[in-house]
């Protein structure tokens, strides 16, 4: 039994395990990093959707500013009143009075024509002002409906995009993972073999003039120890 060979074997085994642990940690780090990257990319998309939605909302709220609403209502009043005033008929002769009619009759005729036109115009303005409110509210409803539609589209897009995140994280993590190389395992196996060799009395360092690894694996008897094949062991006679 050779302590130096055993120690060397155990050291090699430990080194191999340490190497494997380090590789596993690096792999985990890559996988977590990939998951984080996928999440960060998605949060970037969500931020864009949020900004877009906030823009629609801000426009919608701004449209309800009092001055904007007043201007819109005034515009509708003008449009509707103008249309209604255009509905009025042109004044015409309405009483077939003879030329001998007294002046009071003709004056009354002129006054009533004027009254009829004034009354019609007043009705047009009254109806125009009243109906304009409904027109204006309707325009508001249409605008709100459009904003709803835009926000609905943004919400749908955002939800669907977010729904892809778990898959993207899983795939990113999977793709970032690397199969561990065999260096650690080989080192560990070699270390175990060396340790066993040492435990059975083998001395890896003898006969090499202190030259260390020169001629590694060969016993002074000239037979290489195979851990899987114990019969290959040749006891060294010292």
């Amino acid at each position: 039994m050779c302590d130096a060979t055993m120690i060397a074997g155990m050291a090699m085994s430990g080194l191999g395990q340490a190497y494997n642990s380090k590789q596993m940690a690096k792999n985990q780090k890559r996988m977590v990093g990939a998951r984080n990257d996928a999440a960060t990319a998605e949060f970037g998309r969500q931020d864009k959707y949020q900004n877009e939605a906030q823009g629609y909302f801000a426009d919608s709220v701004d449209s309800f500013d009092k001055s904007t609403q007043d201007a819109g209502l005034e515009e509708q009043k003008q449009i509707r009143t103008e249309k209604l005033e255009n509905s009025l008929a042109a004044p015409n002769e309405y009483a077939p009075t003879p030329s001998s009619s007294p002046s009071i009759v003709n004056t009354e005729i002129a006054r009533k024509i004027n009254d009829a036109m004034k009354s019609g115009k007043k009705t047009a303005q009254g109806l125009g002002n009243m109906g304009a409110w409904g027109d204006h509210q309707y325009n508001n409803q249409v605008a709100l409906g459009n904003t709803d539609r835009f926000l609905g589209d943004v919400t749908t897009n955002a939800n669907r995009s977010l729904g892809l995140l778990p898959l993207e994280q899983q795939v990113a993590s999977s793709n970032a993972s690397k199969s561990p190389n065999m260096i650690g395992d080989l080192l560990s196996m070699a270390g175990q073999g060396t340790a066993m060799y040492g435990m059975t009395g083998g001395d890896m360092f003898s006969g090499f003039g202190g030259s260390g690894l020169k001629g590694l694996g060969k016993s002074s008897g000239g037979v290489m120890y195979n851990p899987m094949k114990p019969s290959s062991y040749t006891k060294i006679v010292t």
Partner: protein
Amino acid sequence: MGAPSIPKDNSAQIARRREDERKANVASGRSAIDQQFLPFNDSYFGNIETSYNDFYQPQLEDQYNDTRRKAILNLADSGQLNASSGARSLGDLAENYQKNRVLIGDRGISAGNKARADVERNKSDLYAQNRSAADPSAASSSALARAGTLQAPPTYDPLGNVFADFISNIGTGISAERAGYKGLNTGLFNNQSGSAKVIS
């Protein structure tokens, strides 16, 4: 000796690409809908208002002319045509006519607004369908079908007798006033106020 290479998983990339395609399809479908509804503009709805007026105003004008003619005959029959009371009565009729013209104009605007609301509602329905289907060609054909329905001519009811009360009352009103009753209250006959009436 290296470890066997594992093929890269592209499923997330494929899903993301499909989602981008869906968004593009929705945008494309929205454009198709907007394109189909372009003819439904202010001019289109203005034409509906004009059509409404073109249908109802001539009816009102005919009724007015008819009523005016009958009123003139009634006034002439009662001897009031060449008098201030007759002028006032016919003036009231003209005022009534103008007010009704305005009311018809107002209903014409309402008809245009109703059409506008119908179009907006259909457009909203199509947008919703487009979002669900995410298929621009289907959204476009649906828009075509609805656009065809919207262009169908609206149904109009005939105008009722607007001046019916006026013509039935004017003759009897003037006659009653001349006979000493309140009548149309024109004040032309210088009747004594009060309910007493001396019948000679």
